């Protein structure tokens, strides 16, 4: 036993005698994680969050969250002598007086954009592979919560420097609050400590941005990860992989090295972006005043779809009994996002209701084998994309020599037409892919080699695929739609006929599939 082993042993003994950690560690160090690049998307989000905590802490050392007016006297000449808030001035100081301050600001902002992008692609992976199914519905809901919190947290961070762009963003947020029926103007005055912009908002959102929401994030992320840990990771289907096992690499040392290494990669890439690409150049925006505005005032991308929806909203307001309801703000700003996010959060339950499937699922679906779900996902993404495009319509117009009016009309019509179209196309595409899978299993791989038959006909030689591949293409379940009789066994009409009819229809739509190849099919071919 070497000296270092002796010391390690002593320490381990000390800790274990007090915590009993050895048993737990023993069990968990050998925990197995399946390896797939798409399982790392959530990790990108997690690591970005850590980067945000680190870089954010750095920024708090100098940031002064105050709307007190000061005269700028820093080294950035084009703003020298101007009146501005202490928040804006201290952000300028972080950028130009503190060495590495601008780098940290840029890392913080890039990390925020990566955080949100990673959450979205992670969500897409989980959705399209059906990883949200039992027993992981709670984690899906936590994930939707994290996405929502991320949007809010990001927006608050974007608002803190009190530059012209962020002030414009706050102005719009204030208008949304103010538009709430009955309580709107009261809530707005409470939030801003009086009339907009007041002097209270930035100090308040600072506390929310650096304390309240990060705390909520930490709690939710902890539960999110603990559930992943406890429930064990899902895995893609393949030979030897079943609903009952996990095939992968042990936590220690392989997964630890890979995951740990990946943290440094994410940090490195974020730092690289912070080094080479300017983000949120607040010194160019100037300090906020409500009388100024810049062309192309946009939010960060994760709010862009919301801005796009607001832009395309119809000019509708209702005036009743001396009261105003601003549908042009409420519909795109609250109602539609509310429906979208609630629907997203409830989707696992909706799907299980449609299919009647109450079993656990640890093997992931190939997206093509769940055409209805995949099509619904692409449909939602199409909706978001149209909204996002409209959110940048002015930049698109000037870049590609188009008209904002044309893009707006395209979006207004497209938001209704394109998502259903995307649904139909995706569903058909999925079924075509299923058909292709079936052909592949039945007839093998096309080799591209042509052979002339004795009677002069040319045929392409097909090579049978490996048993592993054949298994991968046929392992999925194909369940029949729910049989929901209107009349029960005793001949009495069931209650809730309409609901059942809807459920039966949805279930039928969900079960549409190209029959997969069975062993009998293969035998039939061999005998042929």
């Amino acid at each position, binding site marked *: 036993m070497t000296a270092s082993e002796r010391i390690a042993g002593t320490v381990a003994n000390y800790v274990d005698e007090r915590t009993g950690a050895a048993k737990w560690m023993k069990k968990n160090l050998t925990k*197995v994680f399946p390896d797939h690049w798409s399982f790392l998307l959530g990790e990108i989000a997690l690591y970005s969050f850590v980067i945000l905590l680190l870089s954010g802490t750095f920024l708090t050392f100098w940031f002064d969250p105050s709307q007190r007016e000061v005269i700028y006297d820093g080294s950035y000449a084009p703003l020298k002598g101007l009146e501005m808030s202490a928040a804006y001035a201290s952000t300028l100081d972080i950028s130009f007086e503190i*060495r590495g301050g601008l*780098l940290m600001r840029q*890392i913080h902002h890039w990390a925020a954009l990566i955080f949100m992008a990673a959450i979205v692609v992670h969500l897409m992976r989980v959705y399209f592979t059906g990883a949200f199914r039992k*027993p992981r519905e709670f984690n899906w809901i936590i994930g939707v919560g994290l996405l929502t919190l991320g949007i809010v947290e990001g927006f608050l961070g974007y608002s803190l420097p009190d530059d012209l762009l962020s002030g*414009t963003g706050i*102005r719009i947020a*204030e*208008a949304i609050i*103010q*538009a709430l029926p009955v309580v709107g*103007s009261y809530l707005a*005055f*409470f939030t801003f400590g*009086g*009339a907009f912009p*007041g002097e*209270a908002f930035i100090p308040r959102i600072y506390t929310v941005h650096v304390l309240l929401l990060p705390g909520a994030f930490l709690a939710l992320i902890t539960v999110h990860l603990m559930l992943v840990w406890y429930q*064990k990771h899902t895995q893609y289907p393949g*030979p*030897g992989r079943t609903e009952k*096992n996990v*095939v992968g*690499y042990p936590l220690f040392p392989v997964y630890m*090295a*890979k995951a740990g*290494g990946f*943290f440094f990669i*994410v*940090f*490195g*890439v974020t730092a690289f972006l*912070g*080094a080479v690409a300017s983000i949120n150049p607040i010194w160019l925006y100037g300090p906020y*005043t*409500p*009388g100024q*505005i810049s062309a192309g*005032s946009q939010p960060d991308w994760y709010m862009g779809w919301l801005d796009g929806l*607001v*832009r*395309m909203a*119809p*000019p509708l307001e209702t005036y009743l009994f001396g*009261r*105003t309801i*601003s549908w042009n703000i409420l519909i*795109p700003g609250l109602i539609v996002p509310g429906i979208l996010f609630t629907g997203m959060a409830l989707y696992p339950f909706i799907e299980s209701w449609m299919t009647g499937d109450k079993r*656990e699922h*640890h093997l992931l679906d190939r997206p093509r084998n769940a055409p209805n779900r995949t099509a619904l996902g692409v449909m939602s993404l199409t909706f978001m994309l149209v909204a996002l495009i409209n959110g940048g319509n002015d930049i698109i117009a000037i870049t590609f020599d188009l008209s904002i009016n044309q893009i707006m009309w395209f979006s207004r019509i497209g938001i209704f037409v394109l998502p259903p179209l995307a649904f139909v196309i995706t569903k058909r595409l999925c079924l075509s892919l299923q058909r292709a899978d079936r052909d592949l*299993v039945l007839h093998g791989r096309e080799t591209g080699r042509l052979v002339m038959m004795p009677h002069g006909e040319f045929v392409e030689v097909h090579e049978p695929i490996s*048993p*592993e591949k054949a298994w991968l293409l046929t392992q999925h*379940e*194909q369940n029949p739609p729910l049989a929901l009789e209107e009349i029960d066994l005793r001949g009495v009409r069931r209650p809730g006929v309409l609901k059942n009819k809807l459920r039966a229809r949805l279930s039928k739509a969900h079960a549409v599939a190209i029959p*997969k190849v*069975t*062993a*009998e099919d*293969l035998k039939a071919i061999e005998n042929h």
Partner: protein
Amino acid sequence: MSNEIEAIKDPGLPAHVHRRADTDPKAALKAERQVAILFLLSALGTLTLIGSYFFIPQDAFIFFPVLGNTNAHQLFLGLGMAASLFFIGMGAIHWAKTLMPDEEVIIQRHEFRSEDEDRADLIATAKAGAAAAGLGRRSLIKRSLALSLGLVGLSPLILLRDLGPLPGDELKKTSWKAGTRLVTDPGDRPIRADDLEVGAVAQTLPQIGEGVHRKLSDIGKDAVLLIRLRPEEFNLDAERLSWTHEGIIAFSKICSHMGCAVALYEQQTKHLLCPCHQSTFDVTRAAKVIFGPSARPLPQLAITVDSEGYLIAKQPFSEPVGPSFWERSS
């Protein structure tokens, strides 16, 4: 359930394929060196960071294609940091991939559902506990507890009341009064009607006393855009026409949709465009909305000139400016 028909058989986990480094000591040595080189690159990155921090002045610039003339301090600080982190990650992953065991491991999943026995035990325990506490019987305690818990929830709401004042009529009024002069923003100079040519615009605010500090919350309601057209270009009713002065028309610059500054004036079309959500207003028709999400015209400020020829407000705004709110009557 669905597998009544015989499915194709699972061939089982494919046989493990050894890596070169597993079988060839030379390959292993090579991989080890590669890992070491990656870690050394990271060290080099940190040195770059330290060097840039202390030795590159903050106002040094360097030209890079694509980036342009870039601040060298910030760039090398960042690149050093990026390299120091990135290569640690590369090294660790390369190490894990090439040298650590890559034999697939299979573990079994456990069922999450508790055993029936455990469930029954839990229910019994819960019932016993509830009975011992008298939850079922002592309804007085239950109800008073519910009441107190409900009320406790109110206290944070009450305590937050002082977050801000009540809106009162703050949203409905601005600083404009009959006779208030319009002054330039920035500059605070009063404006004569003659100062504006046809086709000219001016950003204005109400005049305030010398040395009085203008609050942002006032600018947020008071900002006014002056535009001069030829009088015959107007298409206004008599009242609105009387609010103009020799072709000069004044509108609140705060968008009636969400409060952005609407000031994109197109001289040829006489349209005002809001850059935030692209509501478009026709100046000749009292800022009628002709495109975009805004539901109301921009409020028009009635103007005239005073005895010295300076532009003044004839009367306060006749309606609240800015975005809509519940208490707004139209």
